[in-house]
């Protein structure tokens, strides 16, 4: 088959209707892999992406350029009350274009939970293993060597070691990485093995057509059959609808817009999964502690995430576990996240090179009382949806415990001062002061909560009463609509999600190709 094309909104001068065997909506970790597998099976596939086609030609390593081009809602996607800020990708390659490269297979205990509580049998460690083997080879996924770990990650490594806590080195999807630390702004040298530079071009060489700046507004369906999608063509310069439309007629429709946007697309299409779509959305909510060191940490430099700890992922019944990693610290995001007054944030910014940041990522969705976030449409929203997260006392207990443990780790690694991200930051001058965190307010909008992992909203499961898609990821109620992205995950994962989604998407792509 001859090669396909990558087309952007400005090139689509007139409205058009295309025909294909399959249309895939969204080009991130799910959409890219499923499209790749369908093309590999010889099918004609159209891949639609609402974000732009941005490549290393544009990746100038500035936050000012990266956030508007490469993130949902300019990087300012939030829950309705702003209690949680969501970092989520939006361009060809989706989240993989901007994530920090952490690659983990799904933990065994999560599979066990899904089997026990969600009746999942088809999907297992064994069924995904051959797919992960192939994915890891293609994306050069390998453990990052300790000698290349940057100072920001080294604090976590050293602190964990000093306290005797479990620790590990993260596997990363990079090839000839320069270790400069700008993964979140798009890799300027194509070393990151994102979908943008690997699986998508591989599939285009085999005939995949990619349309960027195309926002799917509706899945067209009748009875039990989807017949395609209707989309707006956006102006790449303004990100606003041009008034021109693109339709795609296809034998199978695959929604891969990720948690948040896939549920919104289904809701716009009057496909609410009997009221389940958009519910049980998991965010791996994150709390952060900042540590100040005597020496420079330069947390903006070097591979952003290379050390992790799963020491606290399983804290026993009734408790929410968390895992530990670190984020890169660049000036604009640091200034936004640090919630001080004018003068106090200036004082912090002046010490930026000496600051180390640590993340505790809560594993949500495993407790019976949790309902997670609910995604709904907004009356006058175009790409912005209502998101409301139901915190429980177990979350706040986990956040408080996590901040105390992180402070302990940071002091054990030599921090001279640790602070929380409360609206009135708790400042600790030594490990003896960690209990100050017990007196801090642990409630929404009193302490900063962020997330970079979005899961659920269209959960897979054996039972249509509790799941939106079946075990083969087919929408309950339609014969040829599939959801293939992080939204099918029934719970949080306890690890960074990209490799789980890669594996599920490659597996699903082979299943779908088999029935077409």
């Amino acid at each position, binding site marked *: 088959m001859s*090669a*396909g*094309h*990558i*087309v952007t909104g400005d090139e689509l001068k007139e409205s058009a209707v295309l025909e294909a065997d399959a249309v895939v909506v969204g080009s991130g970790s799910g959409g890219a892999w499923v499209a790749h597998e369908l093309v590999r099976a010889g099918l004609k596939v159209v891949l639609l992406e609402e974000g732009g*086609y941005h*490549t*290393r*030609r544009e*990746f*100038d*390593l*500035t936050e*000012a350029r990266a*956030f*508007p081009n490469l993130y949902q*809602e*300019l990087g*300012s996607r939030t829950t309705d*009350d*702003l209690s949680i800020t969501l970092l989520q990708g939006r361009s060809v390659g989706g989240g993989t274009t901007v994530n920090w490269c952490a690659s983990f297979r799904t933990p065994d205990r999560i599979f066990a939970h899904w089997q026990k509580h969600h009746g999942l049998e088809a999907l297992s460690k064994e069924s995904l293993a051959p797919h992960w083997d192939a994915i890891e080879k293609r994306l050069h996924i390998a453990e990052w060597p300790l000698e290349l770990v940057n100072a920001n990650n080294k604090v976590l490594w050293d602190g964990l070691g000093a306290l005797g806590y479990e620790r590990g080195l993260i596997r990363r999807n990079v*090839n000839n990485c*320069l270790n*400069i630390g*700008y993964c979140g702004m798009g890799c*300027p*040298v*194509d*070393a990151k093995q994102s979908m943008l*530079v*690997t699986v998508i*071009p591989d599939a*285009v060489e085999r005939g995949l057509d*990619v349309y960027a700046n195309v926002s799917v507004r509706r899945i067209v369906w009748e009875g039990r059959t989807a017949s395609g999608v209707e989309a707006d063509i956006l102006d790449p310069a303004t*990100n606003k609808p041009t008034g021109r439309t693109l339709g795609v007629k296809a034998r199978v429709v695959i929604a891969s817009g990720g948690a948040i946007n896939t549920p919104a697309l289904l809701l716009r299409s009057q496909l609410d999964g009997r009221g389940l779509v958009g519910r049980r959305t998991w965010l791996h909510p994150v709390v952060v502690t900042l540590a100040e060191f005597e020496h420079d940490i330069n947390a*903006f430099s070097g591979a952003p995430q290379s050390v992790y700890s799963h020491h606290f992922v399983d804290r026993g019944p009734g408790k929410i576990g968390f895992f530990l990693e670190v984020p890169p610290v660049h*000036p*604009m995001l640091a*200034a*936004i996240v640090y*919630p001080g*007054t*004018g*003068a106090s*944030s*200036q004082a912090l*910014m*002046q010490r*930026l*090179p000496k600051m180390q940041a640590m993340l505790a990522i809560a594993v949500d969705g495993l407790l019976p009382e949790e309902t997670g976030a609910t995604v709904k449409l907004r*009356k*006058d*929203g*175009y*790409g*912005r949806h209502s998101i409301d997260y139901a915190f429980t006392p177990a979350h706040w207990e986990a956040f408080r415990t996590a901040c105390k443990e992180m402070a302990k780790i940071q002091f054990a690694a030599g921090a001279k001062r640790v602070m929380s991200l409360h*609206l009135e930051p708790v400042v600790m001058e030594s490990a003896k002061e960690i209990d100050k965190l017990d007196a801090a307010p642990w409630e*929404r*909008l*009193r302490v900063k909560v962020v997330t970079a992992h979005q899961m659920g909203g269209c959960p897979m499961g054996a039972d249509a009463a509790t799941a939106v898609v079946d075990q083969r990821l087919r929408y309950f109620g339609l014969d040829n609509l599939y959801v293939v992205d992080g939204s099918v995950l029934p719970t949080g994962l306890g690890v960074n999600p990209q490799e789980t989604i890669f594996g599920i998407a490659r597996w699903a792509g082979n299943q779908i190709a088999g029935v077409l």
Partner: protein
Amino acid sequence: MTSPAGSSRRTLLKRGLLGTGLLALGGGGFLASRSSKLEPPPPEPLKAVSPEQYAVLAALARRFIPDHPGFPSADSRHTALAADRVISWTDPSAQKETLQLLGLFENALAGFLFGGRTRPFTQLSPQEQDEVLDEWRTSRIAVRRTGWLALRAIVVSAYYGQKETWVVSGYPGPPAGIHQPDAPEWRGGDTPRPPGLGVWTEPAPQPAPEGSTP
């Protein structure tokens, strides 16, 4: 805090003004007609906000980034204009809420209900403005903390997103010589995929320009 008047005021805020009801106050009317202290016109036309809202943004910028040794001033970086640009890029629903929030911040009735002030935010002294911001930041009413976070994020990103402000933190900026603005952008079709796509190779050394010293 225990006086009947105080508690009834809080009840009013809780029952009647939360959420969209509260934001609607930003739309105008009531004491909102008390005039704002306007700013000189910006060097480029505004895209999203009115001159009144621009004045609020400028006042907020001076408080979120107060004059401080080593920091370019918020005005010199045209922070309010940059914030206008940020707002203009946001989703229509977010834009509407932001403009309402700016109106609410300025609205003298809201200022009176919240803090007993009868002048708009832009007419207050810097010290009073700091007090207002602190009241929003530490308010018992969650939606005011939300409002503070929203306005702060817009203003702070408009300022610290500019490379001219990197100097304040000693952030050296991205390493030089890595970004290649002329890198090929592959579009498929008959053009072969460039070898650099997915595998980076060291750029060939450029001959030194004439007259340069090694």
